[in-house]
């Protein structure tokens, strides 16, 4: 009863501890630096990873390179070193691409650095076109000389006209290049970089433009055909209805053909920007007209002229395509599970923009693209990871005479797509999970069962010796003689205390223990008893109760007990009687075994 309170208290404590532990069982990680991320004032540095790579250090050198490369590129173009210019252009393209990926990596796709990047992309496009254009210009120079020498006036005219288109284009390029100047210069100054090379590129560009201007003016002067009196100046006239047009306007081009050649169809080839766009049949009175839809023409001046049968050229007319502002409207996105539905419209004023590429950005990163339809509407379903995401769409008007625009930013909450993502609660969610759990529990049950029921191996017990017939048996007599002989001296010496004097006439008691051992062993063997060494003399007598030699054995054991344990002196004949009893017992046992 004294133990009951102690047992109760300990039982209560154990149950209490188990309950406390059980409450935490669902989330066994009680504390770790990761679960202690920080407080409003500071973040736990132990829970943070170090940042890898030195991305910030790459920004400045790239911007510096991008400010310097145009300078040498334009210089080489001016000097007509097209091989070096090609190499410069390649390098420029490569560095621009590096900046593009760096801006994406640093997640700065919406800031100032992005403005610089976009300006740089424009510059790259402009300078590439300049490179191609001046290359073509040089070709034209060479061809002009050849045709002038050969007197081919038709080719000369076409060269002049192409030259005119090229001049206008390069003038437009220069104007576009100037647009980027402010952003590039400001960024350079902010980062403390040298913008002198970039400034030189602008002046070099201007020189290229003026040189081309001069050359083309000369050409136009030499080209102007001499007017034969009585005849018109141009056999083929051309007018453009509207000088300035914008997106989805039609530029109506009308003309009149004054000359007919026999046997040739009355067809006029129309060239816009030195590219043939149509062959138009003239009306019986020689007039023709063409409506050109302004959709993918770039902003700026476009030249147009007509040619009849390859020899009669009209004059060069121009029209100017104006850039129009666009408005990109995005409806509030509809989130689904792991995805979001987006819908919107792209309008340029009141005109819908058709087949325009729309980019979708989620958290500043590109997530998808789609195209507007005929009505300017677009819709797309996008896969997004769950969480709070900022979504917007942008229209970067690359091939359109339109201004780029972006929609408003919407914040959407995307719910997690269903169970089965390894949630700790839903272990049985998938059959695989249940199977693993069951297998593990079964294996541990089996191990526990084996643990509870195993047998510990002990030391090996001596096996009972059964002699088979025909086998030589160790002669117990001989064994006994040996034992006696051994026992007489060393055992006696062992057992006798040093310094004790033995009274004469008494047999050394060493005989008897050895006899007893031998007898004990023999009886145990006979009875298949496993632990002979545990037998005391009385027990030996008792277990040999059922044997024939029982009397001899018991006589021996009694005497032995007396001799060994009583401490009194035993007379010699006693000892002899005992010994004889023992040996006779062993003999009969020996005989019985056979």
């Amino acid at each position: 009863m004294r133990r009951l309170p102690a047992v109760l208290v300990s039982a209560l404590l154990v149950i209490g501890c188990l309950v406390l532990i059980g409450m935490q069982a669902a989330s066994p990680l009680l504390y770790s630096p990761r679960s202690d991320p920080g407080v409003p004032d500071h973040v736990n540095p132990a829970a943070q990873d170090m940042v890898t790579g030195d991305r910030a250090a790459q920004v400045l050198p790239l911007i510096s390179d991008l400010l310097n490369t145009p300078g040498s590129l334009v210089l080489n173009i001016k000097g007509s070193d097209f091989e070096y210019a090609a190499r410069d252009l390649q390098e420029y393209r490569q560095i621009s691409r590096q900046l593009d990926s760096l801006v994406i990596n640093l997640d700065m796709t919406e800031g100032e650095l992005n403005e610089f990047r976009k300006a740089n992309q424009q510059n790259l496009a402009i300078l590439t076109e300049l490179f191609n254009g001046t290359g073509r210009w040089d070709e034209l120079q060479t061809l002009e000389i050849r045709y002038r020498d050969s007197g081919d006036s038709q080719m000369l005219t076409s060269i002049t006209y192409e030259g005119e288109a090229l001049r206008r284009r390069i003038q437009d390029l220069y104007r576009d290049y100037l647009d980027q100047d402010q952003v590039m210069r400001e960024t350079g100054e902010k980062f403390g970089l040298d913008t002198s090379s970039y400034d030189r590129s602008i002046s070099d560009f201007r020189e290229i433009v003026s040189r081309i201007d001069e050359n083309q003016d000369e050409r136009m002067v030499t080209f102007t055909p001499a007017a034969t009196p009585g005849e018109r100046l141009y056999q083929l006239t051309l007018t453009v209805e509207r000088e300035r047009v914008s997106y989805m306007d039609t530029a109506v081009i009308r003309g009149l053909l004054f000359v007919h050649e026999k046997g040739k169809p009355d067809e006029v080839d129309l060239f816009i920007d030195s590219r043939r766009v149509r062959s138009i049949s003239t009306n019986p009175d020689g007039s023709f007209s063409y409506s050109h839809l302004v959709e993918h023409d770039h902003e700026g001046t476009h030249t147009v002229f007509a040619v009849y049968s390859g020899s009669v050229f009209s004059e060069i007319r121009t029209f100017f395509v104006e850039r129009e502002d666009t408005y990109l409207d995005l409806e509030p996105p509809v989130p689904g599970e792991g995805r979001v539905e987006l819908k919107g419209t792209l309008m340029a004023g009141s005109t819908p923009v058709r087949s325009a590429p729309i980019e979708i950005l989620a958290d500043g990163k590109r997530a998808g693209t789609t195209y507007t339809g005929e009505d300017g509407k677009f819709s797309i379903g996008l896969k997004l990871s769950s969480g709070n995401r900022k979504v917007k769409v942008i229209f970067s008007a690359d091939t359109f005479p339109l201004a780029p625009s972006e929609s408003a930013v919407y914040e959407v909450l995307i719910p997690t797509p269903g169970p089965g993502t390894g949630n700790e609660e839903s272990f049985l969610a998938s059959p695989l999970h249940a199977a693993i759990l069951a297998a593990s529990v079964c294996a541990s049950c089996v191990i526990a069962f084996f643990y509870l029921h195993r047998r510990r191996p002990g030391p090996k017990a001596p096996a009972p010796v059964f002699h088979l017939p025909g086998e030589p048996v160790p002669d117990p007599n001989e064994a006994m003689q040996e034992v006696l002989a051994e026992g007489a001296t060393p055992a006696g010496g062992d057992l006798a205390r040093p310094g004790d004097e033995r009274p004469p006439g008494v047999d050394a008691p060493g005989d008897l223990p050895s006899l007893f051992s031998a007898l004990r062993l023999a009886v145990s063997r006979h009875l298949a008893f496993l632990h002979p060494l545990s037998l005391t003399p009385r027990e030996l007598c008792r277990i040999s109760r059922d044997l024939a030699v029982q009397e001899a054995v018991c006589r021996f054991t009694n005497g032995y007990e007396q001799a060994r344990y009583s401490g009194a002196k035993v007379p010699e004949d006693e000892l002899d009687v005992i010994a004889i009893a023992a040996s006779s017992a062993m003999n009969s046992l020996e005989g019985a075994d056979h």
Partner: protein
Amino acid sequence: MMKKHLAISALAGWVLLVIGFMVLARTLDLEIFFVLWLIGILIIVELVSDHAATPRYLRSQRLVIASGVILFGVIVARKILEILSK
């Protein structure tokens, strides 16, 4: 009696050592604690019990250890599922 006290003190010392190291490492994880405790008690029970007989005070401990092994199986299953779902 001496062996029993020795066993209890060894177990208590081992558990305190584990807790001490967890505190030093600033990471307290019940699963790790449970596994280490199971190892400790397994070793101690093996050392204390004789080859011939289990002392009376340790007979019920073997049931505790067996149930601990089953719980260990559950923990292993959890860890596997955690790794699989990563």
